[in-house]
């Protein structure tokens, strides 16, 4: 018998840890994660970090250019808008509103979507066919159309547009969960649990759900980027968040009136949305390829 065993000393990383190791190898993904972390810190601690009240108007300081321009002042980092509101504070609060509502929508859509998807995935026969096809058809209706209908029924507002986008996000979760549950139900470890007498609920909670979390995280990041783009688009079209509320799309729409005089009022909120979505997409992409690497090795 050897004096020491190499295999016993070997460190067995958990699946999540292995994913993280694979994720860390991509520098771009780490940069994306870093940028996303900054946005999350902005949105969590916006009241502590912002220098001014985002809706306080200042008549003495209308349309001050951003600080890097010759006429700018360092006390207004990103300048001010047509009502003298500090753009930096507004954008920071905008991240809070946009990212926060996006996160809420994704969690809600995920909860509903996974429940329906599991239900549909475990169904058999004609009922399953009808449910699946109807869900497929619903998936095809454009988000903006659902939003327009909901806004027409309930009226404009951030919460109403959030309902619309949640509704539009649900089908993709249903879809992924359904095909995942269908594929897993055919595997042998499920058969083993079934032979042990597990009912459908136990099968789902103890066997399928642990295997599904990673897929859900990746799908969730993708949905988050879509949610952020959609909620800001609705804000931009005046169908979502209404004017004094600092929402990135609504800030952009406000700035549109003074594009000629103060182009930074359009450029900076747009750039923020772009960076936010880009960082979410990069992190999501990195996660996905990390998972793919882990599974293939």
């Amino acid at each position, binding site marked *: 018998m050897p004096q020491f065993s190499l295999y016993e000393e070997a460190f067995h990383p958990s699946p999540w840890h292995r994913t993280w190791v694979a994720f860390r190898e991509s520098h771009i993904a780490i940069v994306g994660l870093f940028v996303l972390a900054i946005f999350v810190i902005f949105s969590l601690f916006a009241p502590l970090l912002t220098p001014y009240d985002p809706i306080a108007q200042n008549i003495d300081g209308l349309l001050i250019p951003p600080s890097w321009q010759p006429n700018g002042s360092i006390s207004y980092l990103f300048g001010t808008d047509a009502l003298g509101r500090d753009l930096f504070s507004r954008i920071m609060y905008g991240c809070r509103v946009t990212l926060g509502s996006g996160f809420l929508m994704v969690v809600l859509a995920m909860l509903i979507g996974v429940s329906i998807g599991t239900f549909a995935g475990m169904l058999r026969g004609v009922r399953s066919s009808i449910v699946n096809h109807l869900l497929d058809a619903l998936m*095809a209706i454009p988000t903006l159309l659902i939003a327009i209908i909901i806004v*027409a029924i309930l009226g404009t507002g951030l919460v109403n547009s959030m309902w619309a986008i949640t509704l539009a996000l649900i089908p993709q979760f249903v879809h992924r969960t359904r095909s995942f549950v269908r594929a897993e139900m055919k595997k042998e470890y499920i058969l083993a649990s079934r032979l042990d007498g597990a009912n459908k609920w136990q099968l789902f909670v103890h066997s399928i759900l642990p295997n599904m979390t990673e897929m859900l995280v990746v799908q969730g990041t993708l949905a988050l980027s879509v949610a952020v783009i959609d909620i800001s688009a609705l804000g931009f079209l005046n169908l979502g968040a209404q004017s004094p509320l600092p929402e990135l799309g609504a800030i952009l729409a406000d700035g549109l009136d003074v594009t000629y005089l103060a182009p930074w009022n359009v450029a900076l909120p747009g750039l923020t949305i772009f960076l936010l979505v880009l960082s979410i997409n990069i992190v999501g992409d990195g996660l996905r390829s990390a998972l793919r690497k882990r599974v293939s090795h």
Partner: protein
Amino acid sequence: MIRILSRYSILFILTLLVLAILSFALAYLFPGDVLQNLTGIVPANEIQREALMRQYRLDQPIVFQFVHYLGNLLQGDWGYSSASGLSLREEIGIALPATIELSTYAILMAMFIGIPLGYYAGIRSYSTSDHAINALSITTYSIPVYWFALILILIFSLNLEVAPISGRISLLFDIEPVTGFILIDILLAEGIDRGVALRDAFSHLVIPTFAIGAITTASMVRITRRSVIDVKHRAYIAAARSRGLSGWRIFSQHVLRNALLPILPLMVIQITTLITNAMIVETLFSWPGIGSWLIQAIYQRDYPALRVGMLAVSTLVISLTILIDLFNRIIDPSREKYERASV
């Protein structure tokens, strides 16, 4: 084959029925009077109101109301816009083709630029050029479409003044809408300088098409690249390589066609994003399409227009989806029933 066809036609009819029920329910869900929401006619007095109620069977049980509504829809009586008073069918007949035209050019752009780029990136996977293409596509994919359109307007319309800001064609040209597609209508029109008109329409088209098309192209590149990489790792490619086939032959005989198969169902998912983007961009460019029409309708609280507009757009999108799905099913029988690939 016949089974598949009948299955899909039943699905299609069922879905349309659900949509019709939904649009009928909207008349009750929208704020305001059901009669006005359903017909768009504002009755002048009680007697006319009674007559209209009877004409649209609103005094009968709800099932009869719906059957009558369905009959009206099929006969082409879609009601009247409460804002302009015009027939909704005519308004949509002009607005919907404009959107279809814009989306078609964007899809063509995505297909002719996105798919070759995706193939190139997929074949050279994990090389510098692949990373460059991938980075470019993820960046383009992340740009909010309305901001992108604004930047394009700023650069090309205001600074360089190479393209007009809004509309489909200069008002100097009087083009009779026959098909609704501006380029075809110009070719059909009489008594105008077709070359000048075409050039003018083209300059109006370029920026909106590019704004929508760039984002669609980016996702097309990503889908194609993924699909090519997946195919490259299949056993039959290894078998072909072990038989000593050249790289070009492996690509043209094995990779090219097999990688195309999963792209098609993913295009279905792209359609909804594409239509949403097209609708947003239309409002920015005052493009007279269904998107700006619907958004105008909601600003003006034109509920009959919203009801029919929703039905028209979702019918269009769902017919396209089901058609592509059916086509995909026919050319690829090995595909599992509910399976859809992921991006």
